[in-house]
C-alpha cells in the first residue's frame, strides 16, 4: 500500500477531487494522507479560518466527505470540545468511536488560537488536533506568524524574520497530553502509523505537519515533497513523538544532510541579510537536546 498514491481519489476519500487547493500544497497532501489513515473510522472535523476551510469550496457544495464545522479563527478546540462532549453522551448502540479532529494552520494554532488550544490540552479533551504548519499566514498572502522560521522573508518581515520559530510540540508536551508528534508528507508510512496509533489513545492528541506552501515559500510546486524530505534529513523538521509529555521517541534519524540545501531551494531564505550560520547553530542545539530527551526516555 502506498499512502501517497495520487490514484487514491475516490468520492469516498476525505478530500474529494475538484477542491480548490494550489499545486504543491502540503496541506492538501496532508489531508489526503489523513483520509487514507482514517479510511475505516467515523469522524467529524472542526476547521477554523485557514486554507483548510477554503478547500471545502463554495456553499452548498463541499470537497469534504465528513461533517465539517467552520469555526471562528481562535475557536476550533473549544467548538470541538462541545462536539466531542455530545459524542461522549451519545455513544450509540454500536459504541463505535466517533472521533473529533481539529484541522488548523499555524496562525490558528501558534498565534490566535494558542489560549484555546492550551486550555483544551490542559482539560485533556478527547480530540485530535492537527496543525498543518506552512510557517506563514498563507490564506492572506503570506505574513509572518510565530511559526515562521528565523530569517524567512514574508510580506510583513520583508528583511527576513529576526525571531526564532516557536517550539509548539514542547509547549504541548508541557501540558502532559497523552500524545504529541510531528508528521511529514515525505514519510507517508510514518504518517499513517502515527495517526493510527493516536486513534487508539484517549484524550488530547496533537500533530504538527510540515506543510510547504509554494506561493509563500517561493518554491517550485513539484519540489514540495522533496523539500520536506530534506527538512527531515537535515534536522530542520525532526520526526518524533512525545508520550504523556515526557517520553520522547525519534521516528526518523537525521542523516547528516546539510540544511543549506533545504534553504537554498526556497527564495524566502534568499538575500544578503540572511545569516544561515546562525540558523545552523540553533538547529544543532535543538537536535542535540531532542536526542538527549529521547535517550532519557529509553
Amino acid at each position: 500500500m502506498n499512502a501517497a498514491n495520487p490514484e487514491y481519489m475516490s468520492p469516498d476519500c476525505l478530500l474529494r477531487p475538484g477542491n480548490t487547493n494550489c499545486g504543491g500544497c502540503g496541506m492538501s497532501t496532508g489531508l489526503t494522507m489523513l483520509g487514507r489513515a482514517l479510511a475505516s473510522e467515523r469522524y467529524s472535523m472542526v476547521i477554523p479560518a485557514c486554507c483548510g476551510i477554503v478547500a471545502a469550496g463554495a456553499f452548498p457544495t463541499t470537497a469534504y466527505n465528513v461533517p465539517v464545522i467552520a469555526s471562528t479563527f481562535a475557536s476550533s478546540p473549544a467548538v470541538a470540545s462541545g462536539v466531542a462532549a455530545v459524542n461522549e453522551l451519545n455513544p450509540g448502540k454500536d459504541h463505535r468511536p466517533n472521533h473529533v479532529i481539529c484541522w488548523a494552520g499555524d496562525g490558528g494554532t501558534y498565534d490566535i488560537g494558542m489560549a484555546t488550544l492550551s486550555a483544551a490540552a490542559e482539560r485533556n479533551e478527547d480530540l485530535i488536533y492537527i496543525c498543518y504548519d506552512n510557517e506563514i499566514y498563507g490564506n492572506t498572502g503570506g505574513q509572518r506568524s510565530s511559526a515562521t522560521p528565523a530569517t524567512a522573508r514574508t510580506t510583513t518581515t520583508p528583511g527576513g524574520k529576526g525571531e526564532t520559530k516557536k517550539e509548539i510540540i514542547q509547549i504541548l508536551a508541557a501540558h502532559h497530553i497523552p500524545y504529541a508528534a510531528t508528521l511529514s508528507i515525505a514519510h507517508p508510512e510514518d504518517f499513517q502509523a502515527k495517526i493510527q496509533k493516536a486513534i487508539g489513545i484517549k484524550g488530547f492528541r496533537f500533530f504538527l505537519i510540515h506543510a510547504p506552501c509554494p506561493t509563500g515559500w517561493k518554491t517550485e510546486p513539484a519540489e514540495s515533497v522533496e523539500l520536506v524530505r530534506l527538512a527531515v534529513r537535515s534536522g530542520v523538521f525532526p520526526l518524533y513523538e512525545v508520550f504523556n509529555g515526557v517520553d520522547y521517541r525519534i521516528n526518523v534519524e537525521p542523516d547528516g544532510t546539510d540544511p543549506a540545501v533545504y534553504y537554498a531551494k526556497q527564495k524566502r531564505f534568499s538575500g544578503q541579510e540572511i545569516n544561515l550560520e546562525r540558523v545552523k547553530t540553533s538547529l544543532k542545539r535543538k537536535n542535540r537536546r531532542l536526542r538527549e530527551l529521547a535517550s532519557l526516555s529509553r
Partner: protein
Amino acid sequence: MNMQLVTGNHAAGHSMSLAAEANRNARGSVCGIYPITPQTEIVEFVARYPFSKGKVIPVESEHSAMGVCIGASLNGARSFTASSSNGLAYMTENIVVAAFYRLPIVMAAVNRTLGPPWNIWADQGDSLMFRDFAWIQLYCDTNQDVADTTLLAFRLAEDKRVMLPVMVCMDAFIVSHTSMEIELATQDQVDRFLPDCKVPHRIDPSHPVTVGGMTVPQDTLTHRIELDEAMRQVPAVLEEHRARFKEIFGREVSGALTVYRTEDADRIFIASGTISISLRDIVDEWREKGEKVGMIKVKQFRPFPCEQLVELCRGASRIGVLDRNYSAGTGGIFWQEVKSCMQGQGEQMIQGYLLGVGGGDVVPETIREVVDDLGNRNAVASPIWKGIEQ
C-alpha cells in the same frame, strides 16, 4: 407550590439546569462556562448540578464558552451559558456565529456596565450591543420573571419556526444578587413544557455537510432574509408558548410588552428592566392626582414590537423613554427604537431620558422629575441625563 427565597442568579441557574435535565432522553445538554461578576453564581449553579445526561465544560474564556455551546448545539445537544459586560464583549465573535448558524442557545446576560472606567453595576449597554446579530433579547424585571423567561427562552429558541438564540437579560445586583420569594419550576413541569431539543441541521456522519463554507453574496443575502423571516415569527410563537406556560405552571409569564393604565393616557412612559417596577408606582401617584399618565414595559427588545407600540401610543401626545444605557453620539437605545417606530405616525413628542447609566440607583424621586419634565416641556430636547450629583 415550590416557593423559595432566591436571588436572580439562582433563578436563572435553576431554570437552565432543569431545562438541561429535561433533554436527558434526547442528545443531552452541554455548556461551556466562564466566571464574571455578577453572573458567576449562575455558572456555579450549573457546574454543581447532577445532570443525568449533561456535561459542563469550564473553559478559559467567554469566547470559548460560546465556542463550546456552538459545537454542542451543532451536534444536537441543548446548550446554554451566562455572561456579563466585558465578558460578553470578549465573546462577541462567537455570539454572532451562534445566531448566524441558527443555533437555539440560551444565554443569561446579567447587565453590567462596560468598562472602562471599571464598574460592576447595572447598565444594559453590554447586551444591547448585540441588537443587530439575530439574537432574540428579553429583558426581565424580577426574579420570578428571570426564572420563567429562561424556560420560555428554551421553548422559543428551539421552536423550528424560529431556531434562533435567546438572551435573557437582567439588571446586575438589583436582580442578580437580590433575594425574592418566587415560585420555582419542578422537573416534572419543565419536562412537560420543553419537548426534546431538535437541531434540524445538526452534523451527522452519515450525511456529511460542511457547516459554514464560503458563500457568494447572493447566498448570504438569502441567509439574512431567512433571519428576518424567523424574527418575524417570534411574536406569535412567543404568545403560543406563553399560553402553554400558563397551562403547565399556572401563572403568567410576561410577554413582549406589559401595558399599565395607558387606555386614556396622554402621557406614556416606556421603560425596561427594574426601572419599570418603580415607574409603575409613580404612574399610580399621578393617576391619583387625576393626571392621564400610563406606562409600557418593554421586555422583548429583539425583535422590537414596533406595531404594537405604535398602536398603544396612538392616543398619547407625549412619550417619555427611560433608558439605563447610552449609545454615544445619540442617546438611549430604547429611545432610538421607539423614535424609529413612531416615524410618520403623527406629531407626538418623544423625549429620551438617561437614568442610572453606569449603574447608579434610580430612585422614585428621579422618576418623578422625569414625569414632571415631560408634562411641562414645550419642545423636545436632546436626551436628558439624570442622576448627576450637583
